[in-house]
């Protein structure tokens, strides 16, 4: 039970490289905070500074209001689950879990009691006498969690704990982590690069890019009101479509359709001092097969789109369509492309994805009528990539 405050924290390495820059964050007591970002964004470094495994170059770290910058990891009362689990291979499961309690010099009965309680929570009772080598990946993961929760620390830190599991098990363990956290109500910081984990697990999500904190908010707010292009592109799968659009009076000229601006959008744009061009983002689910949209399309536009590829997921269909003109090239989006590896693909410029209802009849290679919910457009400043908020 603890609050954690990161006050203007910077991590600078010997060669002058700054892995984390002026990081400010408050984690409330009992909160489940997710730290997410592409690899190399400094999220693990930030976590390891909280743990005490990395020195803090500048700024203060407070746990329960006390500055702990210079405290050794063992004096911070923090437990951590490592990506590799870091189980002690020469100890049995039971000994692994008892290790922190033994170091704390608890009486043996207390140790036995706590280990068996924890084993029960994690369903590890029948494995207590086995060595980590003889366990499956999921079981090892649970032992690592067990070793963390057995001593009921003030704070849990998790460094991509599920990334070594296969997809199915990961979904299962995700639920498990969530269940354990809500049961123990311990403050938890959880690092991941998987945005699904970020969206489903946390009370709040902090998005990082290149050592800088981009936005901290609830998953829903991050998804619906991203602060900038990077957050908009990072959160959501498939990710948001971005277009460069010209502004011509009251009309927004997208590459494939003209959209009449509504009052709220007009007010927002005039307040944002953008001239001529703006970056427009729209999520795949805000497209629909025009044939399936009834009269409720209040602020929508219909357009003709050449469908290049369709992917049927059963419950929905992803339709990729081409349009004239290239992709938006903004530094923040380029970072994302590099992270996902999309930067290495042959130029995919001018393609957008729409998530359509499974009932759709659009076909690969044919041109179809698509509908777009224009009230869900997100506008971004073309230079600094900041969001232009539309008050509705």
């Amino acid at each position, binding site marked *: 039970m603890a609050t954690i405050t990161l006050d203007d924290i910077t991590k600078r390495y010997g060669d002058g490289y700054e892995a984390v820059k002026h990081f400010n964050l408050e984690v409330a007591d009992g909160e489940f905070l997710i730290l997410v970002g592409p690899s190399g964004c400094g999220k693990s470094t930030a976590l390891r500074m909280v743990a005490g495994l990395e020195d803090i170059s500048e700024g203060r770290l407070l746990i329960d209001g006390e500055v702990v910058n210079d405290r050794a990891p063992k004096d911070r009362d923090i437990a951590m689950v*490592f990506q590799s689990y870091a189980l002690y*291979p020469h100890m049995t499961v039971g000994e692994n879990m008892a290790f922190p309690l033994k170091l704390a010099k608890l009486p043996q009965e207390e140790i036995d009691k706590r280990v068996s309680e924890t084993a029960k929570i994690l369903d590890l009772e029948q494995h207590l006498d086995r060595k980590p080598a003889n366990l499956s990946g999921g079981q090892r993961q649970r032992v690592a969690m067990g070793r963390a929760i057995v001593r009921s620390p003030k704070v849990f830190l998790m460094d991509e704990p599920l990334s070594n599991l296969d997809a199915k098990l990961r979904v299962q363990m995700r639920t498990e982590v969530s269940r354990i956290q809500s049961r123990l109500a311990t403050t938890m910081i959880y690092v991941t690069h998987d945005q699904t984990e970020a969206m489903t697990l946390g009370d709040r999500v902090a998005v990082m890019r290149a050592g800088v904190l981009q936005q901290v908010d609830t998953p829903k707010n991050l998804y619906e009101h991203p602060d900038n292009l990077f957050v908009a592109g990072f959160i959501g799968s498939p990710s948001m479509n971005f277009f460069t659009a010209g502004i011509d009076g009251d009309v927004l000229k997208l590459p494939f359709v003209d959209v009449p601006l509504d009052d709220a959008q007009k007010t927002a744009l005039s307040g944002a001092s953008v001239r001529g061009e703006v970056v427009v983002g729209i999520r795949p689910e805000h497209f629909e097969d025009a044939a399936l949209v009834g009269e409720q399309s209040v602020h929508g536009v219909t357009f003709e789109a050449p469908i290049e590829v369709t992917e049927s997921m059963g419950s929905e269909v992803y339709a990729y369509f081409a349009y004239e003109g290239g992709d938006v090239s903004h530094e923040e989006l380029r970072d994302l492309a590099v992270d996902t590896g999309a930067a290495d693909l042959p130029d995919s410029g001018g393609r957008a994805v729409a998530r359509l209802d499974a009932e759709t009849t659009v076909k690969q290679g044919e041109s179809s009528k698509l509908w777009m919910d224009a009230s869900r457009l997100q506008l971004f400043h073309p230079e600094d990539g900041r969001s232009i908020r539309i008050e509705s």
Partner: protein
Amino acid sequence: MTLDRRRIFGWGAAEAVIVVAALFPVLWLLSLSLKTPDTVNDGRLLPKSFSFKNYSSIFDQDIFTSALRNSIGIALISTVIAVILASMAAYAIARLEFPGKRLLLGASLAIAMFPPVSIVGPLYNMWRHLGLYDTWPGLIIPYMTFTLPLAIFVLSAFFREIPWELEQAAQMDGATPLQAFRKVILPLAAPGVFTTAILVFIYAWNDFIFALSLTSTTNAQTVPPAIQSFTGVSQFTAPTGAIAAAAIIVTIPIVVMVLLFQRRIVAGLTAGAVKG
């Protein structure tokens, strides 16, 4: 015959040749040690008559029993100190970044490459002045000096194999750096520790040149120079049987040690196989 079976057969034959070549002298020595003085030179592998007289005679001589005591003591102490120092140095080399790390490793290797013959003369003089001549420390110090570089090399390779996260996990679990080292790192490096221990022990146990030059009496003389000073019953009889018996006796601790530690090495290897 399939290729696989042919390969197995080939390897088996090669191994058999090596084992026979290595063990035959030992067998010959054993046979010599069991022969009576008048049959020593008969050239037969199987003695005509068995006798343990050679064994009882060497244990009657003070020179051999005290040499055995010295050998065991000096080799064990050298081993313990060398392993402790080497594991600390190797840990620092594997884990820490400090200026001059490569130089340090290079220098320690260079020491190991020094031929002992070239330093034995100066050492003799120094030891006499320092009062280390013919004492246990007088032998323990050079043995450690010559085995530490190799010990550091072997151990740092083992430490490097241990994921650093294990140590960090131990720190998160509330261990001091020393506890993390003792309870997590050292047990995992056990195979390396035992390998190093065997190497150091064998070096100290087998050394002849330092022991010959830096000792003179039963105070510190170890078995190899003691055997060399065996004499026959008269000046015309060679003490072949006694030397053979003593050689067999000094081989036993090495064999026992390797057999004992070999099991630990295998056990350690399987325990270390799981990486976190």
